[in-house]
């Protein structure tokens, strides 16, 4: 068990590769109750949410979820978030564990409206059921027609007799569901899900597999690909920035950066030499330091050593030779298209 922002969390249960493969081939279960929740309510909830986030919250329909950014005025990330529209006057935001207090303070400070912003992390436990057999597993425990929930949509219903928000979202690159339930019910639901998934070979999964899965799918991790010094335009997340929706926190800074031109961008790479790139390693191009690795490690699905790094924007396209400095030795790598892994639909 490792201490993760005050939570005791397992890095692995049966082994990272076995857990990783279970999610890609069948189904895995993650306890992600450390994730934070913030609820914004009231007639002006949308105005507040749309201003603090980069994506177009005003285009969400009830029962839809959206990946978005919470930015400082200077354009760097406070956090990356999932915004769920529960009702016209009720938005439910899932945030990173280690950022939750900061996010809450940030949203309250930016709330020039009369929106009611509530810190709700204590009210929810979160379990993620992920993989091609996630639907069949969860369906055994609920009357909700799961196939009827589209990707990045959610519905409120019951799972094993307890109230649950069931969202077809995830952080693995596979189909799957994230369910939000009362914390007291979590141990029982965890056990029932493991039982329901037994015939498919379900595995409980820890933080280690969560990281290898999200890296293959090129999903950002706060503190690695994104932080207060990185903007969405640099992080290859322009798609969550909707300049045309009106004013939002960070908009001016992003517009200025866009006009001036982004100087660095996130790129994917594969090791061609022997070695594994890790977070923080230096990246060299043409014999000189050019960037740094944000995440790196073996890809169990591809059988290669992969990573993400920041590079000068003219060097961030696929097919270029780069060197990763591993224990003071340059090791060859090549930039590649991302995501590294995309599931077939």
């Amino acid at each position, binding site marked *: 068990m490792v201490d993760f922002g005050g939570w005791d969390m397992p*890095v692995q249960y049966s*082994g*990272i*590769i076995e857990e990783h493969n279970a999610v890609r081939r069948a189904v895995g279960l993650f306890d992600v109750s450390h994730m934070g929740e913030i609820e914004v309510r009231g007639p002006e909830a949308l105005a507040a949410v749309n201003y603090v986030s980069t994506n177009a919250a005003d285009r969400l329909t009830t029962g839809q979820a959206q990946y978005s950014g919470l930015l400082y005025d200077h354009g760097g990330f406070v956090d990356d978030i999932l915004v769920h529209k529960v009702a016209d006057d009720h938005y439910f935001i899932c945030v990173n564990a280690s950022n939750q207090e900061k996010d809450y303070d940030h949203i309250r400070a930016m709330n020039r409206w009369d929106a009611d912003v509530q810190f709700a992390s204590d009210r929810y436990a979160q379990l993620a059921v992920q993989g091609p057999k996630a639907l069949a597993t969860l369906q055994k425990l609920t009357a909700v027609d799961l196939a009827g929930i589209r990707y990045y949509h959610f519905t409120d219903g019951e799972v094993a007799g307890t109230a649950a928000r069931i969202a077809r979202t995830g952080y693995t690159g596979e189909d799957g569901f994230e369910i939000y339930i009362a914390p007291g019910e979590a141990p029982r639901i965890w056990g029932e899900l493991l039982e329901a998934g037994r015939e498919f070979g379900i595995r409980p999964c820890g933080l280690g597999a969560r990281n290898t899965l999200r890296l293959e799918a090129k999903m950002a991790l706060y503190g690695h690909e994104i932080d207060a010094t990185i903007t969405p335009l640099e992080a290859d997340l322009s798609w969550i920035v909707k300049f045309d929706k009106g004013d939002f926190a960070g908009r001016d800074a992003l517009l200025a950066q866009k006009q001036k031109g982004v100087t660095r961008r996130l790129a994917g790479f594969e090791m061609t030499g*022997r*070695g*594994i790139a890790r977070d923080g390693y230096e990246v060299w191009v043409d014999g000189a330091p050019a960037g740094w690795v944000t995440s790196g490690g073996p890809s169990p699905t591809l059988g290669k050593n992969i990573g993400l790094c920041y590079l000068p924007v003219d060097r961030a396209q696929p097919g270029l030779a780069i060197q990763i400095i591993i*224990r003071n030795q340059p090791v060859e790598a090549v930039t590649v298209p991302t995501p590294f892994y995309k599931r077939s639909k």
Partner: protein
Amino acid sequence: MSYPTDLKYTREHEWVRANGASGVVGITDHAQKELGDIVYVDLPKVGAKVEKGKTMGSVESVKAVSDVYAPVSGEVTEVNDALANAPEKLNQDPHGGGWLVKIALSAPDELSDLLSAEDYQKYTGEE
């Protein structure tokens, strides 16, 4: 797993199987369990001089890099090349097929500083 009594162990979780003035070196079952799936092994070359307690290589699991310290001083005479393509041997057979290097001991007396199987087991708290 029980720890073989013909091995000597370090508190940094390496082992040595000494035979006269030569010793086979590896990492312990406890170490491989703590590391999890091992995916990469970085070892010294044949002829390299290693010094007791100093880094002689590294093993990487999916999650992290860990240094391997030389349990004894000497010169590397053989390297387990099979690990380059099959690092999982370290998980499967840490005290046998997952050996790392053979060392010609330059100071065989150092062996007396190492732990017995029983003491190592107590040290790691394993039954």
